[in-house]
């Protein structure tokens, strides 16, 4: 080993605490890269592989009842490679030994092999007789079924007992979410595959279909195909065909991938920037301290390049340590994410960990980051003229300026003046130290606002808008008298009928397919609530839109939009936008119930019923009876919905705030510790002189700690502002058609962030200040600087 390399290793060993403090900051950046970039790619790749193998369709269409005879027309559309027609329906399930009703999406299984959205059999066999059913694996597991178990399905009014013959997974249901649910509830929502014969007979679909999947040839433009499919299906009660972005499960996966990518854009640059600064600060100091060694190496005949490389390699060792720790932490984080995905996403195989290429280029980024930081110092070392290097450095120039006059006017003590003068003498360094700690505050603010935002979401969505215990979805043919029948069931307190219609809202080139809900003047259970918690009734003259829907359509109050209903009478109306309301889930649109009935020239009717129950004890009795209710297609237990959302959230928020707390602490320690160490190194002689002159240890520690702690204090408001900015960026980045996160910044968020950063800064500074105890006064005075 070359002597210079040995010097390198020993220098690093001597500097290991400082090196580690920097490496941890770098490691945090690398870890977040591995987790966010790695897992977004892993998720993307896994999904792509699954979709590819199981031929996930490109276009999804549905109709009320379309004859199979039009399939050749659909197949003939240019760009269509394959099609698959099915019959699908929601149904209430009755699971033996369980009071609670469940909801199932029933899918007809074709005679031959499936060609698109091919379900993957996980156990057992496909239904061979009309009394067999295959269920999706998560539903099977959540209910503790065994093959051969039976369950009852309300097949369009006729209850039929089916035997579970197998389990399956499907690319259409990676994120399996029932109607009206916010997250997967596998116990109460299942996918059921039945023979086509049973489905045809039960739903009167012989020779017909109501669901269509289409695969397209490569490089086919989707929009024209959608338009042609719609044209062919239109006479049969078609809804607007959707591409993959409108497919629910796929849309949730998209949202998750987007979140990870937003994280990748926002967080790692912060850590890398701080690493550059820290390496630059420490390396500059090292080069200053090693002036005479640099002079010596030049005298011996080492080239400028060799000397510059020597210092770059020291930074390279920090990179190696940081990348190593970052890989470990990142792999662990990625694994934790993969476990989480296994819980929420139903893939037939594990989501692969971080791709190897991401490991490779994250290491490249690590080395580039520390090299960038060390570049200035390495250049300085290379440029140092040998004769100058051998001589001691000139003392830094201090000048009296405005600041000094201010200090004199304030009658500051000499130690305080030393602190302030150092700040003014090295404004760039002071500025970067301040910025570093401000970024730590910002990271904490930007992560800690999540719980408050969630609280607002929960309050708005569950306790203000949707206050029902249960939501019952009915067949459109259900009579309005069903409300009274429901009211008579045991335990029922409040009942409210409501109507949902699927509709396309169109404003010129902008178009969204959304559910329009009716709101009655007396609505109490399912209300529309604005940002201030006030219930709003939609104006009878028009439609009330959620804010994200309004901005997606580029409309404001007073504009007129085209509403093309895809259920009910399927009419198209021109409707004014009479209001916009802030909402966090979905893209809601609301119309006054009476106005809606008048528009459709219909008597009052319902598609769903909201209800509250007297007490939890009554629920069981109610649930056992509701299962056999006529024309009921699905039940949604909102109380359970709420609970599972809260449970998941509280669990995830604890993990997330802990991780970000660690990240903020790492930044603070990295910045504060290194800044103080460099100070100690620069001021050792000065501080020792003061001790010899009779200053106490405390007074000397004050000078050492004062500068960094003063900067930490000034960094707080800067960090609050930065954090609010980052949080606002993140909320807009996370926003999708599925949900939005409100920007809720409570004073407590800022206080918590500041507490952590000031605490970590104080501990870091104290650790360095302890070294003052070991200050060998005589040795320091003898050292030649």
């Amino acid at each position, binding site marked *: 080993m*070359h*002597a*210079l390399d*040995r*010097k390198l290793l*020993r*220098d690093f060993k*001597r500097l290991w605490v400082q090196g580690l403090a920097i490496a941890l900051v770098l490691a945090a950046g690398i870890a977040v890269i591995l987790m966010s970039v790695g897992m977004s790619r892993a998720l993307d790749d896994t999904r792509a592989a699954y979709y590819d193998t199981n031929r996930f369709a490109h276009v999804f269409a549905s109709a009320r009842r379309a004859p199979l005879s039009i399939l050749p027309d659909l197949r003939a559309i240019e760009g269509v490679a394959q099609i698959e027609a099915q019959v699908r329906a929601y149904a209430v399930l009755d699971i033996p030994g369980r009071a609670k009703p469940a909801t199932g999406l029933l899918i007809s299984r074709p005679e031959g092999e499936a060609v698109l959205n091919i379900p993957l059999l996980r156990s057992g066999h496909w239904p061979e007789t009309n009394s067999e059913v295959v269920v999706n694996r998560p539903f099977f597991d959540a209910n503790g079924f065994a093959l051969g178990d039976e369950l009852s399905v309300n097949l369009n009014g006729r209850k039929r007992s089916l035997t579970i013959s197998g389990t399956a997974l499907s690319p259409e249901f990676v994120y399996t979410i029932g109607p009206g649910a916010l997250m997967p509830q596998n116990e109460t929502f299942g996918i059921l595959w039945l023979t086509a014969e049973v489905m045809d007979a039960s739903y009167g679909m012989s020779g017909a279909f109501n669901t269509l999947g289409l695969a397209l040839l490569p490089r086919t433009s989707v929009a024209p195909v959608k338009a042609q499919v719609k044209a062919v299906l239109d006479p049969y009660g078609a809804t607007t065909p959707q591409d993959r972005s409108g497919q629910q499960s796929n849309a949730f996966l998209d949202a998750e991938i987007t979140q990870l990518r937003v994280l990748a854009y926002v967080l790692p640059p912060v850590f890398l920037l701080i690493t550059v600064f820290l390496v630059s600060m420490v390396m500059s100091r090292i080069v200053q301290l090693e002036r*005479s*060694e640099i*002079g*010596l*190496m*030049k*005298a*011996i*005949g*080492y*080239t*400028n390049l*060799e000397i510059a490389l020597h210092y770059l390699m020291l930074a390279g060792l920090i990179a190696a340590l940081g990348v190593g720790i970052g890989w470990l932490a990142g792999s662990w984080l990625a694994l934790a994410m993969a476990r989480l995905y296994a819980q929420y996403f139903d893939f037939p195989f594990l989501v692969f960990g971080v791709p190897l290429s991401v490991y490779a280029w994250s290491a490249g980024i690590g080395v580039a980051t520390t090299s960038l930081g060390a570049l200035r110092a390495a250049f300085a070392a290379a440029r140092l*003229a*040998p*004769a100058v290097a*051998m001589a001691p450095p000139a003392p830094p120039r201090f000048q009296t300026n405005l600041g000094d006059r201010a200090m004199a006017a304030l009658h500051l003590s000499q130690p305080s003046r030393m602190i302030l003068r150092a700040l003014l003498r090295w404004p760039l360094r002071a500025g970067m130290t301040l910025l570093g700690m401000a970024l730590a505050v910002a990271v904490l603010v930007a992560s800690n606002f999540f719980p408050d935002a969630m609280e607002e979401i929960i309050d708005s969505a569950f306790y203000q808008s949707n206050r029902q215990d249960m939501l019952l979805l009915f067949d459109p043919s259900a009579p309005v008298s069903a409300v009274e029948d429901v009211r008579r069931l045991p335990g029922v307190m409040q009942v409210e009928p409501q109507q949902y219609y699927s509709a396309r809202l169109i404003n010129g080139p902008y178009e969204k397919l959304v559910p329009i809900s009716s709101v009655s003047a007396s609505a109490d259970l399912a209300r529309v609530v604005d940002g201030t918690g006030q219930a709003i009734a939609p104006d009878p003259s028009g439609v009330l839109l959620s804010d994200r829907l309004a901005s997606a359509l580029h409309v404001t109050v007073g504009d007129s939009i085209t509403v093309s209903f895809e259920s009910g009478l399927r009419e198209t109306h021109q409707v004014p936008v009479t209001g916009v309301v802030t909402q966090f889930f979905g893209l809601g649109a609301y119309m006054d119930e009476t106005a809606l009935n008048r528009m459709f020239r219909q008597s009052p009717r319902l598609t769903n019923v909201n209800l509250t129950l007297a007490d939890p004890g009554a629920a069981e009795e109610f649930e056992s009876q509701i299962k056999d209710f006529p024309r009921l297609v699905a039940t949604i237990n909102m109380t359970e919905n709420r609970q599972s959302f809260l449970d998941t959230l509280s669990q995830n928020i604890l993990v997330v705030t802990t991780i970000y707390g660690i990240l903020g602490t790492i930044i603070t320690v990295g910045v504060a510790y290194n800044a103080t160490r460099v100070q100690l190194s620069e001021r050792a002689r000065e501080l020792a002189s003061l001790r010899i002159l009779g200053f106490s240890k405390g007074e000397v520690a004050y000078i050492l700690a004062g500068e960094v702690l003063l900067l930490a204090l000034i960094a707080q408001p800067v960090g609050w502002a930065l954090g609010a900015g980052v949080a606002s960026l993140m909320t807009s980045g996370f926003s999708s058609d599925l949900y939005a996160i409100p920007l809720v910044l409570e004073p407590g968020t800022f206080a918590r962030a500041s507490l952590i950063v000031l605490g970590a800064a104080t501990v870091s500074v104290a650790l360095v200040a302890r070294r003052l105890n070991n200050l060998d006064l005589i040795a320091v005075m003898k050292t*030649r600087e």
Partner: protein
Amino acid sequence: MSQDPEIVFRTEGLTKTYQTGDVQVHALAGVDLTLYAAELTVLLGQSGSGKSTLLNILGGLDHPSKGRFWFKDRELTEASDRALTRYRRDHVGFVFQFYNLVPSLTARENVQLVTDVARAPMTPAEALDLVGLSHRMDHFPAQMSGGEQQRVAIARAIAKRPEVLLCDEPTGALDSKTGTQVLDTLRHVNEAFGTSTVVITHNAAIQGMAHRVIRLADGQIESVRVNDTRLAPADIVW
């Protein structure tokens, strides 16, 4: 000294001016000098007389402001940084007042710093043996006395078998006894290898061991004297 000795260094009107703040300092004010192969020269002068500046220029660590100088037949006055680096690496050994050992490297490794980049070096062990430190090879600078550290520095300087050895106050930080050991080592190297050796010092007592003594004052040569009889380092006392 042999007849018609080979010339190692030659300077013509060598001048060096430093700008310190608003003040111009003439460190060298026209030095004409010739140094010969295998010669041990002592450059004597008060601090500020310009001896270190002269040594730095001869050693390729600094450029003159005016004048010219040659190493053997090669003019180095306008030599590029790269050429000077090459020149230092191949031909010059330095010994400094404060030893300038790398504290994180052992004696052997400090010497290895040179042998790693030199063209035909001796081994670090040989070099340390020459200065009588073969028993201290694996010690770090902090574990050695000042005299020992300076001998490691000499071993490091001679390990590349340089043609010239430039010593800047090599005994300046040492007491008389250890200083004598260091001077003895320098003379031994000079005699054994025929290395031209320049020792600059403000300590007049050292001049007795030189072949020639050059006095500098105010950046100019004040006098040049040839010693007819040389003192052994052991006989030098200060």
